[in-house]
C-alpha cells in the first residue's frame, strides 16, 4: 500500500482527500440529522406506543410491551377529531389571508423607497417578538369588543396576524431580489402593470411565497395562546389539546401521541413544498419563468 501511495501523482492524492472530506461531511450531516430529528421522532413514536399496563421504566432500554392504548386514550377522551378539523380548516384560510394582506405590504417595503421603511420592517415583526400570551391577552380585548371572539373568522384573523410577519418578511426579501433590469426591459417592450405583475413579480416571488406559506401554515397549526383565549370553548385546535398534556400536567405518553398527530401532516407538507421550492428557484435563476 505504501508503495502505491509513493507513486500516486499529487492530483490523485488531492482528489482522494477531497472525496474523503466529502464523505466525512456527508456522514457528519447524516449523524446530526439522525440525532437532531430522527431520535426525538423515534422516541416520540416509542412513547406513544407504550402500553398503559406495562410502563417503560428504568432500567429497560426499550418498552417491554407496545400497544395502541395511548392512541386510543387520546382519541377516546380528548376532542382531537374536532381539533384536527378546526386546525386544518383554519390554517389554509389563514395562509390565504396572510398572502392577500402581505403582498401589497411586501411590495411597498421591497420595491419602494418610503420614509421609515426600516421602522415598518421591524414593526411587522412585533407579534412574533412579544410573548404569545401577552399578545393573546391584549388582543382578546380587541377581538371581543368587535365580536370576533368565539367565531371562525376571528380565529382566521388571529392566526393571520401571527403568520403575517413571516409572510411579509420573506416576500419583502423576494421583492427586493428582483433585478431592476428585468422590469426595465419589460417596460421597454411595452409591458403594462398587469403584465409585469403576472409575468415578472409573481413568478419571481413564488419561491419566497412558498417559503412564507410554509411559515404561516406551521405558525397557524402550532398557535396556542390566542386560539385558547379567543377560540375556546367554541373551537379547539391541536395545540390546545397538546398543551393539556405538555404543560403543568405533563404526561409524556399522551403528549407524544398528540405531537405526532400534529407533526406528520406538517412533515409531508414540508417535503411537498420543498419540491416546488427547488424547481422554482431553478426556473427563476435560468430566466425560464
Amino acid at each position, binding site marked *: 500500500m505504501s508503495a502505491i501511495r509513493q507513486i500516486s501523482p499529487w492530483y490523485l492524492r488531492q482528489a482522494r482527500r477531497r472525496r474523503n472530506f466529502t464523505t466525512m461531511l456527508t456522514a457528519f450531516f447524516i449523524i446530526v440529522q439522525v440525532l437532531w430529528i430522527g431520535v426525538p421522532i423515534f422516541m416520540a413514536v416509542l412513547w406513544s406506543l407504550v402500553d398503559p399496563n406495562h410502563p417503560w421504566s428504568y432500567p429497560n432500554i426499550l418498552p417491554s410491551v407496545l400497544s395502541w392504548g395511548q392512541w386510543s*386514550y387520546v382519541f377516546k377522551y380528548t376532542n382531537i377529531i374536532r381539533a384536527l378539523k378546526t386546525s386544518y380548516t383554519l390554517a389554509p384560510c389563514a395562509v390565504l389571508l396572510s398572502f392577500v394582506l402581505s403582498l401589497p405590504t411586501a411590495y411597498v417595503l421591497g420595491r419602494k423607497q418610503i420614509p421609515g421603511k426600516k421602522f415598518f420592517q421591524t414593526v411587522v415583526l412585533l407579534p412574533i417578538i412579544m410573548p404569545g400570551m401577552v399578545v393573546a391577552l391584549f388582543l382578546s380585548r380587541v377581538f371581543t369588543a368587535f365580536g370576533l371572539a368565539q367565531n371562525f373568522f376571528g380565529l382566521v384573523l388571529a392566526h393571520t396576524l401571527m403568520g403575517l410577519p413571516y409572510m411579509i418578511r420573506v416576500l419583502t426579501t423576494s421583492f427586493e431580489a428582483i433585478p431592476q433590469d428585468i422590469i426595465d426591459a419589460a417596460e421597454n417592450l411595452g409591458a403594462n402593470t398587469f403584465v409585469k405583475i403576472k409575468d415578472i413579480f409573481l413568478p419571481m416571488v413564488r419561491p419566497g411565497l412558498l417559503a412564507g406559506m410554509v411559515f404561516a401554515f406551521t405558525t397557524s397549526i402550532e398557535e396556542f395562546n390566542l386560539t385558547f*383565549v379567543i377560540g375556546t370553548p367554541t373551537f379547539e385546535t391541536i395545540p*390546545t389539546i397538546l398543551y393539556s398534556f405538555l404543560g403543568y400536567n405533563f404526561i409524556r405518553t399522551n403528549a407524544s401521541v398528540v405531537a405526532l398527530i400534529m407533526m406528520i401532516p406538517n412533515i409531508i407538507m414540508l417535503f411537498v413544498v420543498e419540491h416546488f421550492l427547488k424547481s422554482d428557484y431553478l426556473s427563476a435563476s435560468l430566466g425560464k419563468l
Partner: protein
Amino acid sequence: MKKLLVLMLALTVVAGIAFAAGPSIDLKTASWDQIVAAAKAEGSVTFYAWYFPDYFKEAAADFEKEYGVKANVIIGDQTANFNKAIAEKDMATGTIDTMIVGGQWVKTTTDLNLFYGPIRNMLPDNSKFPSTAWEVQEGVMINGYLAPFHRNQTGILYDPDRVKDPPQTWDQLVAWINAHPMDFGFCDPSKGGSGQAFVFTAIGSLAGGFDKYKGDKELVPSKVANWDIVWKWFNDNKDKMTITVSNNDSIMRMNGGELSMTVAWDDNVKDMISKGNLFKRAKMYIPKMGLAGGGDTMGVLKNAQHKAAALLWISFIQSKAQQLKKFQMVGAYPARTDITIEGTLLSEEDRKNNAIPWFPAPYKDFMIKEFVKNVLMK
C-alpha cells in the same frame, strides 16, 4: 365603515347585557329544586380543567344523561386557563362557567375577586365535606366561594428496589441525601405544589416548627427572620439534590432512573401509573417530619353565562357516586368525609398522623419568592 363599527359595538354591548342578565331567579335565595330547574333551562355548562380528561369526559356524559344539561369540558393548561379567566374578568359575560382552582392560583384568583358566591350554602351536600375545606385552600381564605371536590396529599415517592429504608425524620432525610447524592429530587416550588410542600417542611424542621405561623392573616417579619438558615441549608446541599421543573417531571425522572426518591402528589402518582408513565412497584408515604396536603376546588365565575348549570355540575361532581367513580378511574382521593376507600397509595394512618396543614398564604407566597431569590438565583 365607521357606522358599521359603531353598530357592531352596540350589538356586542346589547348582547352582553342580555347574556349577563343570567338566570331569572336569585340563586342565593333559591331552593335547590329551583336551581336544578334553572340549570335545565340554561341547557349547558362550560367547564375548564387541566387534568383527568378521561374522568371528566365520562362525568360529562353521565351529567347529560341525568339532567339533560350538556357539559362542555375543556381540558387546557393550568396557567392558560387562569390567564383566560383573568382576561375575560371585565367582560359582562365570560365564556367559562366553572373551573378547577388549584393551590397555585387560589390566591391570585381570590384577590381578583373572580368567583361568584359564596356558593357553599347553595350546594346540597355541603355538610358532607370538612368545614375547613370550604374555608381555607392551601393557606388562602376562600370563605365558601370555592367548592372542594378533590383531596390530594404530598408524600415521598420512592423506588423500593433502590431505597430499602426510607427516611422518616428531617435528620434521616439529610443523612440519606448525603449518602446518595442527586438521588433525591423535588420540584422547583415556583412550578409545583410538591416542591412547595418540601420547602415548607424544611422551614418547619430548620426554622422553629410550624405552629408559630398559625392564624396570621399577614406576614409577621420577625417570624421569617430566621429563614436564612433554611436558604443556607438548600445552598449547601444544592449539589446533592435534583430540582425538577414540575410535579410530573419529578415522577418522570424517577421512572427514568435518575431519581430514586422524590416528593410528589398522590393523585399525580396514581395517574402516571395508570397511564404507563411510572413503574407499578413505586411506593409512597408521608414521613413523620410531615408534608402538607391540599385539594383542588371548583368555582363559578362571576360573569358565567350559566351559573345555575355550573352549580348543578359542581354538585354532581361532589356527589357520592361521582366521587367514587373519580377514585376508581383516576385514583383521586374523594373530598367527602362520608366515603371510606381502600387501596390508596398513602395509608390512612399516614394521613391521620403525618399530614400537616399549610401555613397562611402570605408566608407561602413569601417562601416561593425567597426560595427563587436565595436558592435558585444563587
